[in-house]
């Protein structure tokens, strides 16, 4: 399947022009602001990666163009699907019609330990299943009754969140009043979240709204028994923005504990409400997914004086650098243990790289994901000798693109809120050895004969965080790229004409 493919900044600039030419003028102008090639910069290279480039697109975090097949989701997806959904001992009501909760049911692989339906509720779909009369007459009464029924049938729930779907904000329901009333009646935490899908331009505003709901409906309420009973220690940290996809948070926690830290709360994969409530008493917030939870970290810094720092547990270079940076916030005991942890895992890292790097060296990768991954996973590919040809964010903001410059080299293709059309054309022309994106992108890319891994759900594998996760990551990339199926696409009787002529 030898096809012409492009590479290098000049080619990419031309490719962007070519792709934009397909749009009507008005839309071409709008989309042009989201597509760029990473440029040289005078900034100091990043201390760990040694890289500095300028990746800021002119625009990000603005409305998607109608009709172009954006890959983005909505605010509800950002709140219910990402931030709140994984909190395991609370019931999360998809408040409105049935679909939103149905399509997002059990799809994010937020692993947790618990008896589902008894003391844990993550992989369940609770909905008010709005009917026409609820739209016409309002849904507050139904919501109130729904909460009562949850209380009766799921008595071990430690609280309820109300995840608003589109109609709620449009019909003027007062879910806050219902939440207050039910909090009084049942004495449990009730969290109304105004994450209607039409708010904002992507999942991103849903994250923000969900963060604000933590502040307003958990932190700013009276201390619970869990908070009162808790005695803070000097090594207490929170992990923020790890959703435990395929067990990511567990493969991270084990490292932090080995170096002597206590992970008081993990937000929000495998979390209980107590882990959320106690967070303000920790010494340090470690934030992995900056995009989805920086808001609450900033709030905790401002209100409770808790410092926060970003870290990256994808790939051994960043893991070691992150562990050291975290340890530097504590005393020598922790720093020594940190070195011991890095040393302990070094043989595993060496083995993994020795086994997989020769099979992956020089292979090119295009990414299109959300949250932190368009930059954070880059270094894991670097560690395996792979090269990033292009990357982009579904719902990144300017600060994400700025940070991306510390990860990808000059000449990398950058695409923000990419459309189905653009992504297909980019992939077709660049023909990378691997694409990492989501379920909607997986099958079109594979049809083109290009290996693919879902980088939202880890393609039903994982964890990818931590040292244990890196081994899985390396194996998965290897098996995607080096599977024999890619060589079977062409029927032998339909060989390329020149090949036949040469025989």
């Amino acid at each position, binding site marked *: 399947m030898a096809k012409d493919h492009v590479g290098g900044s000049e080619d990419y600039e031309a490719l962007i022009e070519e792709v934009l030419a397909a749009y009507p003028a008005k839309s071409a102008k709008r989309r042009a602001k989201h597509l760029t090639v990473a440029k040289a910069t005078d900034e100091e290279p990043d201390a760990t990666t040694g890289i500095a480039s300028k990746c800021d697109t002119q625009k990000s975090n603005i409305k998607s163009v109608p009709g172009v097949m954006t890959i983005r989701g909505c605010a509800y997806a950002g709140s219910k699907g990402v931030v709140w959904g994984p909190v395991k001992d609370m019931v999360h009501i998809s408040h409105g019609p049935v679909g939103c909760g149905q399509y997002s049911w059990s799809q994010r692989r937020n692993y947790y330990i618990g008896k589902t339906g008894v003391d844990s509720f993550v992989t369940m779909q609770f909905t008010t299943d709005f009917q026409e009369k609820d739209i016409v007459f309002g849904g507050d009464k139904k919501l109130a009754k729904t909460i*009562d029924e949850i209380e009766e049938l799921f008595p071990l729930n430690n609280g309820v969140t109300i995840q608003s779907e589109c109609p709620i904000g449009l019909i003027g329901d007062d879910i806050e009043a219902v939440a207050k009333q039910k909090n009084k009646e049942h004495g449990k935490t009730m969290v109304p979240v105004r994450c209607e899908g039409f708010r904002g331009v992507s999942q991103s505003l849903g994250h923000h709204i969900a963060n604000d709901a933590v502040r307003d409906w958990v932190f700013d309420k009276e201390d619970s028994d869990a908070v009162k009973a808790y005695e803070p220690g000097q090594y207490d940290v929170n992990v923020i923005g790890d959703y435990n996809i395929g*067990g990511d948070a567990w493969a991270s926690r084990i490292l932090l504990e080995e170096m002597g830290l206590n992970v008081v709360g993990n937000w929000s994969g495998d979390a209980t409400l107590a882990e959320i409530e106690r967070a303000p008493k920790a010494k340090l917030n470690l934030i992995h997914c900056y995009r989805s939870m920086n808001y609450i970290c900033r709030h905790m810094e401002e209100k409770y004086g808790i410092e926060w720092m970003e870290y990256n547990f994808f790939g051994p270079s960043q893991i070691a650098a992150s562990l050291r940076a975290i340890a530097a916030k504590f005393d020598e005991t922790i720093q020594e243990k940190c070195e011991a942890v890095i040393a302990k895992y070094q043989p595993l890292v060496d083995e993994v790289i020795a086994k997989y790097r020769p099979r992956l060296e020089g292979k090119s990768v295009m990414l299109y994901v959300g949250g932190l991954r368009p930059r954070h996973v880059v270094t894991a590919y670097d560690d395996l000798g792979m090269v990033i040809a292009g990357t982009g964010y579904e719902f990144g903001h300017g600060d994400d693109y700025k940070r991306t410059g510390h990860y990808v080299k000059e000449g990398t293709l950058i695409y923000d809120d990419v459309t189905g059309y653009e992504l297909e054309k980019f992939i077709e022309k660049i023909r990378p050895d691997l694409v990492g994106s989501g*379920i909607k992108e997986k099958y079109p890319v594979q049809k083109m004969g290009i290996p693919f891994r879902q980088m939202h759900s880890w393609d039903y594998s994982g964890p990818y965080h931590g040292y244990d996760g890196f081994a899985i990551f390396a194996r998965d990339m290897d098996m995607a790229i080096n599977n024999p199926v890619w060589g079977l696409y062409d029927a032998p009787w339909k060989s390329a004409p020149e090949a036949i002529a040469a025989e």
Partner: protein
Amino acid sequence: MPQSADKVLDHAPLFQQPEYKEMLKNKKVQYECGHPDEMVKEIGDWTKSWEYREKNLAREALTVNPAKACQPLGAVFAAAGYEQTMSFVHGSQGCVAYYRSHLSRHFKEPSSCVSSSMTEDAAVFGGLTNMVDGLANTKALYNPKMIAVSTTCMAEVIGDDLSSFIAQAKQKESVPEDFDVPFAHTPAFVGSHVDGYDNMQKGILSHFWEKAERTVTGSINIIPGFDGFAVANIREMKRLLAEMGVEDYTILGDVSDVYDTPSDGEFRMYAGGTKLDDAKAALNAKATLSLQEYNTPKTLEYCADKGQETAALHYPMGIQATDEFLMKISELTGKEIPESLRMERGRLVDAMADSQAWLHDKTFAIYGDPDFVYGMARFLLEMGAQPKHCLATNGGKKWAKKMEDLLASSPFGAGCQVWPQKDLWHMRSLLATEPVDMLIGNSYGKYLERDTGTPLIRLMFPIFDRHHHHRFPTFGYQGALTVLVKILDTIFDKLDDDTIIPGETDYSYDLTR
């Protein structure tokens, strides 16, 4: 350290290693502030009691684990069955991401669909601009022959009028005046995905038929309905029609090639589908046959209004349902059912007879879309098996009545309960208090399998956690054979599992069964 490059452990074995088990135990004890184990056990047991069942069945407001999706999903599925057609869903964009993901996870195939990406300003001012720009962009980028417009609940709540919006978009030259833009209002707060399917089918047909003159021909139309097995079922149906020598027919909404494109280096955004010219000409057909009545009430009513004869089946699976399908086709086309199909039928009966001892009086719970549940229950009755619970979250009173009539028609239907508008948390109570041998449903049923130990057979959309089942038919005699084998395999696997302990139970671990 459990991990190694030699043998990489992923999540399933990794977290069973002692290091992780210890870590998770500590997390629970030190940080989670959960309920005591005894209490969790006690409540867990209580959730499986009759007392709990009664409270559970008395729910009025809360829905837990429903077995239905919303209208636009069905609309997108229906429109996908037409030649080079792009679905355009007017409203919030997150919905479209969900439909596409849902369909791709089931079919393991691309699912293309666009949104008009309405946001807060559109909620205030309406989404006309989104429609105008959106249609133009879709046409320019994806080169469809037809754009089928449906709605999310946001657009429905604010009352956007598709007919007027599309007309205005055409005036503004988003797409040419004669470009096909059928539409259907598909409010998510009415009915379910099967109603969305119906509305979009009607929308497409009325777009083509409304101003056309009807000249009756001998052709017939067949509407398959929303079906997770559509790829193989439609192909199987075409084979049956070919066996009968029926050539003059139109499948309205043929997704068989759409959700089953080859891997040969080319991504086909559009493949197969009902030709638009054929959809137009379908007005002239003498009759329209729906394979799933509850998927097509409005569409069939529309066909009848146009003067067509109409008929509806309930998922032609099993002996009698396939007989009816063939006889109906024969009646409508005047073609005889050939001997080859009688042989096929005989082979299926032969297989059922061979296995009848393993099926007789086995008890089942079934859930899914109304037509599927009906068809499945009917086939079980034919096998001498006993359906005990038949549940459809999107089934209404009429469906329940029809189910009861079916069950009353066979001694094997005695004692079976029909549960319209109930969900899978209700089903959990039913299985806990009145257990059955097997559960038939979709992937969501795996939680019921875990909680109640009832083996699950996946025969209903969506199937996310098993691959490629939809590539094999369940329709017709051949399809029934596939279904029969799945059921038998489940019975035999369970029996083997139950008798596999050496020196204890393996006297029954028989080589021949």
